[in-house]
């Protein structure tokens, strides 16, 4: 990991030093079209890249920054300014049929640095590609298609980032492929990777929380239990309708044996997700949605605090209201948008009372976004959220105003 970071820094420095000499050396790399029609599964390559002179690599990235003012039940922590992530991409074609791409993310102003993607792809046939390295598990669509500049909302969807663990990537290998005609496209992905660990049910969130597994410093070096996580997805796209995908991710999450000694029974986590996106041609209204169901085998003696079942998702509706030249930007678009999201972290009833377990939320997020170019967005969101604690006490009410910018570079 160190070497990759050093390489990234060197490339970054080279990029800067050359740029200081002559910016005309920059060359915009056309979008990767080796797979024909673009689907969600192509999101990692479906990004703008720049190459510099004759350097045999292309680079890119995006940055996000935002302002937040929030109140919860009338109590505000005031005004906050953040830079939640700065992400760098480096891609290289080693051969006409061998590609490499990595995505390195600096989160929270550099407090966390992570490699979200670093894979070699070998194309044997459009339907048979072999991928190895750090891969993004294809669960739902947001996990692979998470770049900030692609979205009209400052915050990522809660159910996809806190129920599913987007961005969730692991070391592993697998196959993917696509078959398409003029109006239809079919794609699949299937990977075996390292997986989760027991932190998903022993964490300081006090709930079953799949993203807790991302905190393990060893997860890119070894499996927590020697059991592979299976992730697979199939997606179908029709040009005039849209794309729908169904995905599954599952495996044993706990350390059930150590040094040959049995510690516990094997306990599984299983996730199913559906995703879709479409554009209504008449109004150019874009609709994107995703829903996931999580089932975790939690020991009965552990109590109800950590849920066995969870579900949640979101739907975004984005309506362009004006496009053309605004403020001198010739290809700009002004959008009105709205996100609705819901998540239930603990589906079930209390054994003691027979009453429903709470620990759920729903939110409505109206938004306005302005895209001076397709790759840059300025967005203003108002988020209203109602959440209940595990006991199902009266909702706490949160309101958040956010102003954010995000752009590829």
């Amino acid at each position, binding site marked *: 990991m160190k070497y990759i970071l050093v390489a990234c820094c060197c490339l970054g420095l080279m990029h800067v030093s050359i740029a200081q000499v002559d910016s005309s050396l920059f060359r915009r790399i056309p979008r990767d079209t080796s797979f024909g029609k673009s689907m969600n599964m192509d999101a990692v390559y479906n990004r703008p890249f720049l190459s510099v002179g004759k350097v045999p690599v292309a680079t890119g990235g995006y940055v996000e920054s935002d302002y937040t003012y929030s109140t919860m039940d009338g109590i505000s922590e005031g005004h906050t300014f953040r830079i939640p992530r700065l992400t760098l991409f480096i891609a290289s074609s080693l051969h006409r049929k061998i590609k490499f791409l990595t995505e390195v993310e600096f989160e929270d102003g550099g407090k966390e640095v992570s490699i979200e993607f670093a894979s070699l792809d070998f194309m044997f046939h459009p339907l048979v590609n072999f991928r190895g390295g750090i891969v993004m598990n294809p669960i739902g669509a947001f996990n692979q298609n998470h770049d900030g500049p692609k979205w009209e909302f400052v915050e990522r969807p809660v159910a996809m980032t806190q129920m599913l663990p987007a961005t969730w990537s692991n070391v592993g290998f697998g196959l993917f492929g696509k078959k398409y005609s003029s109006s239809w496209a079919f794609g699949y992905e299937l990977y075996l990777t390292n997986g989760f660990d027991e932190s998903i049910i022993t964490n300081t969130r006090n709930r079953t929380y799949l993203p807790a597994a991302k905190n393990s410093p060893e997860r890119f070096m070894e499996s927590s239990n020697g059991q592979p996580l299976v992730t697979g997805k199939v997606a179908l796209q029709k040009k005039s309708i849209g794309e729908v995908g169904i995905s599954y991710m599952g495996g044993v999450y706990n350390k059930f044996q150590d040094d040959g000694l049995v510690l516990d029974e094997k306990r599984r986590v299983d996730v199913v997700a559906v995703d879709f996106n479409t554009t209504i041609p008449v109004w150019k209204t874009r609709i994107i949605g995703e829903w996931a169901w999580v089932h975790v085998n939690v020991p009965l003696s552990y109590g109800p605090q950590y849920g066995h079942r969870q579900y949640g998702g979101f739907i975004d509706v984005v309506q362009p209201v004006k496009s053309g030249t605004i403020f001198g930007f010739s290809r700009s678009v*002004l959008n009105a948008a709205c996100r609705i999201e819901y998540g239930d972290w603990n589906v079930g009833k209390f054994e003691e009372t027979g009453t429903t377990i709470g620990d759920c939320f729903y939110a409505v997020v109206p938004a306005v976004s302005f895209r001076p170019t397709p790759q840059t967005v300025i967005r*203003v969101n108002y988020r209203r959220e109602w959440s209940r604690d595990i006991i199902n006490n009266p909702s706490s009410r949160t309101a958040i105003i956010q102003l954010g910018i995000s752009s590829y570079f």
Partner: protein
Amino acid sequence: MRGLIIGVCVLFSIIFIVSCDSVMPASLEEDQLLDGPVSGLTGAEHRQFLLGDAAFNTEIFTGQSGLGPVFVATSCGSCHAGDGKGHPFTTLTRFGQSDASGNKFLAQGGPQLQHRALPGYSGERLPDGASSSRFVAPINTGLGFMELVSDVDLLAMADPEDIDGDGISGIVNWNTIPSYVKVADGAVSHEGKYITRFGKKASVYNLLQQTANAYNQDIGITSSFEPVDVYSHLEVDPEISTQTINNVVFYLQTLKAPIQRSTEREEVIKGKDLFVGISCEKCHKQTLRTGNSHIAALANKEFHPYSDLLLHDMGSQLDDGYTEGTAKTYEWRTAPLWGLGLSPNSQGGSYYLLHDGRAHSIEEAILWHGGEAASSRQSYEQLSDADKELLITFLKSL
């Protein structure tokens, strides 16, 4: 130009939204909330209150930070949502003691059952032959005031022989206390035992003992005060700092007392008259007084817990066969009624009243009263429906 107009509209919309109370949710009225400090704390005391608040309400224990391996709950806040009464899913089960001779089941996991366990472990089961009782977590607020009522005042309220002939005795619980507990100035002792006042059986001396014991017995966290692990029964390294425990104790001491609501409403005033009239107030004492304290905001203050902090015979229906200290199995400390009307806000919208949450309404709780309270219960039963409603309205205002 059109773009500029749109931009200005968006900007004004944001300003409008930020300035609008209905869009940015307003805070609840102070009398609807149980959390928050007593008034009059200094800046330094506010800092310690916030540290204790964070430890109490947001610190979640995991296997890595010492949870269990057997436990009841993973944090203080799990049992005391919003500092209010607890929900039955975190009910404690105490077992092993039937009389003043002590707990016979300490070697088998007594006095508390840790029925939950980390993955790979098994929770405890009640040993055969052990008597037991289930306790719903109490409201946290105003505890600092109750801690400062002098022993002399408690003994003055007690009437073990019922000398005044009103059918209500009221006794203190004499109990041994751990060595780490510092006895308060003016404390009264009897045969090496002290007057204890916290808990359903009034078996805990002060908030330090309550806090250290709850970390240990409820969460499985050892400390310099309670160093023995509930699973291995061995002394182990502290899993929480002494300073954190001190902060939590300070937080509990300085949580404000619940504020009564609708005090001017005629129904509440009439309901209160009925409450006094049928002698509920003989045990559920309206007003007590604190003594001296190093926390100036708590010193020498009147407060209104609606409890005398004494043990009373509550009759056979509430006799679980289990006890603590010198209390009899049928004796229970008078439950403070302050905050009663806000119980559903921390119990998931329902009432779970009495020591084990068996009563699902205030009226049901009244009707479970027996023993020394039988006469008041009968008086309540003889009230007209309208008067019963007035009495309940008053109790909900607390």
